[in-house]
């Protein structure tokens, strides 16, 4: 049992930290520009594919640096020549723009790399077990994923709270006009934030790609969860996104371990429910079986009872 708890916690933290790498950029971009970037997970996918391509020529490690940089530049260009132009027509146009972009990126990836998952390998240097606890081994690459994302989190925190750049970004979040009046180039700040957000997503792609299958559907399967993280954490709140990421990571992992169903809960109360009762499988489905939809349940509940999210300061 203890073994299950420890490893579920590790797996949950890992998944949560990966979510945070993506959600941090998404939430920053949203709070600055008011755009919910539907294509954000696509940049994550691009990161994984770029990393894969680079790793085929020069190995994994250069890809870890180059892929996020490349994707960051692409992100900045998208902001400069796409979003900024569309911005004139309002938020709905921007939203639709990113929505379309997500499909275009997916189609491009399929055309270039094919529809079948690519063989993105874990680097040889990390292809061993980091430690054995009880009788379960934990792969070194997962440990690396966890440490990498923690490092990025700390770096981001320091950048935003301890540097001048962070000061300007935080000011631009709430008072863009004032920051502009003080002589700062606010559009440039926006472009940089968008680029860095995309680069962070790409970094998540490079570290998750080898472990979690690099395939064209990876963006579409992760995208919706990101919105849950951002809404639950509170739109625009970085600490909120952090807490929500870990929460959802842990909830999803632990839910898999639970075999309790509604019928089991009601059985001691004298209520007997079977597959043939009204509602059928609803009563018999275990928590493990419904694990994938639990985050969305959370999303719905948060929107009803706490529209600000956990740490947000404005309504969704």
């Amino acid at each position, binding site marked *: 049992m203890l073994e299950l708890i420890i*490893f*579920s916690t590790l797996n949950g933290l890992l998944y949560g930290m990966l979510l945070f790498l993506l959600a941090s950029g998404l939430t920053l971009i949203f709070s600055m520009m008011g755009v919910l970037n539907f294509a954000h997970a696509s940049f994550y996918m691009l990161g994984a594919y770029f990393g894969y391509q680079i790793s085929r020529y020069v190995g994994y490690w250069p890809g870890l640096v180059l892929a996020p940089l490349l994707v960051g530049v692409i992100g900045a260009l998208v902001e400069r020549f796409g979003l900024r132009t569309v911005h004139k027509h309002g938020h709905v146009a921007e939203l639709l723009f990113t929505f379309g972009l997500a499909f275009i990126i997916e189609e491009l990836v399929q055309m270039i790399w094919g529809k079948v998952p690519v063989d993105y390998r874990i680097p040889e240097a990390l292809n061993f077990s980091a430690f054995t606890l009880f009788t379960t081994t934990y792969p070194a690459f*997962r440990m690396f994923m966890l440490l990498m994302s923690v490092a990025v989190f700390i770096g981001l925190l320091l950048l935003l709270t301890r540097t001048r750049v962070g000061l300007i970004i935080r000011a631009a979040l709430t008072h863009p006009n004032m920051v502009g009046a003080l002589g700062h180039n606010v559009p440039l700040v926006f472009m940089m934030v968008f680029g860095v957000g995309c680069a962070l997503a790409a970094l998540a792609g490079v570290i998750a790609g080898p472990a979690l*299958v690099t*395939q064209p559907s990876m963006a579409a*399967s992760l995208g919706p969860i990101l919105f849950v993280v951002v809404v639950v954490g509170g739109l625009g709140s970085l600490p909120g996104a952090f807490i929500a990421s870990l929460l959802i990571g842990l909830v999803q992992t632990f839910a898999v*371990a639970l075999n309790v169903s509604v019928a089991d809960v009601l059985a001691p109360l004298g209520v007997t429910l079977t597959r043939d009762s009204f509602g059928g499988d609803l009563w018999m489905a275990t928590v493990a*079986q419904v694990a*994938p939809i639990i985050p969305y349940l959370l999303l719905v509940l948060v929107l009803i009872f706490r529209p600000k999210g956990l740490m947000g300061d404005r309504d969704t």
Partner: protein
Amino acid sequence: MNILTTWRRWSLAAAVCLTAFGAQAQIKIAYIDPLSGGGATIGEHGLKHIQYLVEQVNAKGGAINGQKLEVVAYDNKGSPQESLVQVQKAIDAGVRFITQGNGSGAAIAISEFVSKFNERNPGKEVLYFNYAAVDPALTNEKCSYWHFRWDANSDIKMAALTNFMKDKPEIKKVYIIGQDYSFGHAVRGAANAMLKQKRPDVQVVGDELHPLLKITDFAPYIAKIKASGADSVITGNWGNDMSLLLKAAADAGLQVNWYTYYAGGAGGPTAIKQTGLDHRVYQISEWHTNVPSPEMEAFADSFLKKYGGSSGQGWWYLRMKNEIDMFVEALNKAKSADPKKVATALQDMKFKNILGAEVFMRPADHSLFQDMYISSFGSGTKHDEEKTGWGWKTVGLIKAQDTVIPTTCKMVVPS
């Protein structure tokens, strides 16, 4: 626009049509399987199989006095709904023979669609050849005259596996994990019922269903299997759900015996090698590369050479070879590519396959009965898989007549 240019356009269009459809293959087979998403790896692998088979048939002069076969691939993304869209597309393109195998959900949808279509379009019948979807419903309550299956159904496979497990006293705790759809439900149901009957002392410590072809990280499930204390796992998983499950088991160092239907599918052997479980992963199938048969071994070798690629994924579906061989035989026997006549020729066909073994189609439910092999994967075999150095070794053989189980199908033979 004057008449001349219009006329020119029409003639041009007609010429294009002729070169596109006319001069080439006369008998088209639509291959409808996942070519994107979680099932893509095995879908692509199957496509290579059928392409190779058709090349072989055509090289030998085709069927019915030299008519050539042609494969047209359609991507159903592994979904039943999308399958129907693709079937309709294939029918619109003039295809009369459809083959599909990955996913019983899709298979049931296609079978029902084809039955309805044939009822409404007499004279334009379509046949559905199923090479791998093994939900027993397809040849029982949902059977159809237009559906033919070349694989043993899930109940037959589970009966064989549990008979094998019966004589292994070291099995004490079993974990059942499967995909959450019709086939996964069929496997778990059969596994529970048969274990209870054959080995009442065995404890089922887990009975798990997970979303179909959506999971990319099985670590949480492996942690759960580990915590249950199971010594054996039974699973009907296929595609990425099999290879990623094994990969996660390898990562966590899970030491159990695996009783599987499809561990040999594309990507599976590589993952087993990673687990280091030497001859502890079992598979029930109609063939594996180390079944002694010079002719089949040569055939598999030549496929590996041509289509193996860098991953070294070799031949896997003998059932697909049986399917195409019997299809050609039926075409020749019927002397016609009319699906109705082909169906008549197929429905009670007895055939000697490339292994020299007798296989037969049962008219009562259109399912093929053939010898089934239980094999284990590990070191010291003649042929290996995916360049791992490990291969399959026969540990049990069930003769075709011993796999026959009754059917509840009430076959409606169209007049």
